[in-house]
């Protein structure tokens, strides 16, 4: 018997390469600077030690904003303050104000679960749940009240297509998500976040745990997402930031506390930085 026959039967579901987000656009079109996240005087302390000092920054709708800077300058802390993941860290104190769509998210009336549904997050290390591939996506959907089987199925397929994973996993949706490769796991995590149709995506070095090829796939994906989502991405890969971001924010450690040094159009930060620290960092002299 021909060994290929068995395979052909297995992949009779519709596995194809069609993306739903359209073809890849290099150099995303520049967007109207309409702030969607407004950060004012944000300070963050872990057990009394300041990690982030008085950061004021606007994140613009539909754009990719890259946060760059050396390790320990508070980029990740900044990110977790935006979706209030800091609530989970004991002895973490947040001061200042963050407004998303004009509403203060540290207000006691803010529904944190609804907020986090609106603001998706992707972590540095791929962290799929120890469940099947399918359940990784359906579990959050069901928890947010989307229980109709057809809807759940179509969203699952849609987001997996969006991240280009559908043709790789459509015939083994019920196998363990942890059996996927690192790059696939990370794309599954992005799909899981997209399934809740968030407005904003926070990405904490999404490519740093991946090999260059997987990293390239995820990077293309992020470019494709721009315009559809507001993306804030932390990255240590300056070339990557330069390729995909519209805006860049440069953080630096001063007196053991992270501070925002410069914020502006990505091109300006890289080509004509106003601050000498920024110039030194992006040119690889310091940091």
């Amino acid at each position, binding site marked *: 018997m021909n060994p290929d026959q068995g395979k052909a039967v297995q992949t009779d579901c519709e596995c194809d390469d069609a993306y739903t987000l359209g073809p890849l656009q290099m150099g995303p079109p520049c967007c109207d600077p309409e702030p969607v996240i407004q950060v004012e005087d944000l300070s963050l302390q872990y057990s009394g030690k300041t990690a982030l000092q008085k950061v004021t920054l606007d994140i613009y709708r539909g754009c990719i904003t890259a946060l760059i800077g050396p390790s320990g300058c508070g980029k990740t802390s900044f990110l977790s303050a935006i979706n209030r993941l800091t609530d989970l860290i004991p002895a973490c104190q947040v001061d200042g104000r963050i407004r998303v769509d004009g509403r203060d998210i540290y207000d006691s009336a803010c529904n944190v679960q609804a907020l986090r549904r609106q603001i998706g997050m992707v972590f540095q290390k791929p962290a799929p749940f120890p469940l099947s591939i399918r359940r990784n996506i359906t579990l*959050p959907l069901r928890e947010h009240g989307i229980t109709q089987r057809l809807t759940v199925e179509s969203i699952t397929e849609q987001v997996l297509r969006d991240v280009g994973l559908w043709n790789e996993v459509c015939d083994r949706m019920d196998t363990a998500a942890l059996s996927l490769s690192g790059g696939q796991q990370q794309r599954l995590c992005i799909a899981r976040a997209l399934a809740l149709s968030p407005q904003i995506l926070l990405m904490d070095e999404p490519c740093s745990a991946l090999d260059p090829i997987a990293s390239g796939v995820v990077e293309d994906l992020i470019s494709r997402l721009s315009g559809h989502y507001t993306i804030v991405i932390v990255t240590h890969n300056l070339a990557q930031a330069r390729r995909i971001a519209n805006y860049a924010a440069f953080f630096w450690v001063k007196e053991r506390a992270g501070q925002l040094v410069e914020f502006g159009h990505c091109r300006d930060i890289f080509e004509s930085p106003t601050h000498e620290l920024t110039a030194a960092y992006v040119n690889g002299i310091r940091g």
Partner: protein
Amino acid sequence: MFDVFAINRWQYYRELLVQLIIYILVLLVSAVFIWLLFDLTRGGLAHLSWEFLTESPRDAGRAGGIGSILVSTLLILLVALFVAVPLAWTTAALLSEFVPTTSQFGMTVRFSLQVLAGVPSIVFGLFGNAFFSIYLGLGFSILSGGLTLACMLLPILVSTAEAGLRAVPQSYRLSAAALGLSRTATLFQLLLPAAAPTLAAGLLLGIGRAVAETAALLFTSGYVDRMPGSLLDSGRALALHIFDLSMNVPGGDTPAYASALVLVVLLLSINIMAMKLAYGLQRKRIMSV
């Protein structure tokens, strides 16, 4: 010049010696168990029969079987687990998920459980007798025995479950929170399934301890070896039966051997079963929808 091909004799013999000692110690530990099992089988296997397992004891246990004893043991165990497991697992979830590690409340609960774990079982027996049997008026009954055992099982069940929950990677909690899952959903959908093997292992330890318990049941569930009619009847547990046969009944050695063999085989099979169950559950959870 440093010669990489030279064999350092002293190092070589030392490696060999350490390995040998480790092997001998491991063999010694296993030998204790094997010798025990062998001795029990030699002394009790001939006495084992279907009648022995189903009939009630006669002539203080010299004749007849252990049917009623097995039923009493099972009932005591069920009462204990029914009360202790929900209490222990909710306490563990509270301690690991809802209370900061360093909080005064958590520390107090943990400390009291540690103290409880160190209390000798005879003290539990006296407490059970004073509180359940006399104060609450349950008398010498399966219910008071089961409740006393539940108190004894709490520390071990809580500490294993808490350790299991804490061992679940923090990344699951962060990812779940970032997806807007509630803490309850995270607990039930992710953390408890991920901790299931540890929970099962803790449950096993608990069952093992409960089945083998003697002293705590002496003053609470009593000596009566008849078939229990209700939870308020006195019932003799298996371990207590063995104790009674070997200490108080002249000529009760053979049935004591047989009962001990049944107890050990029971413990072994519970262990194997629960291990398989936990493994299967975990697999199913990952594989299915």
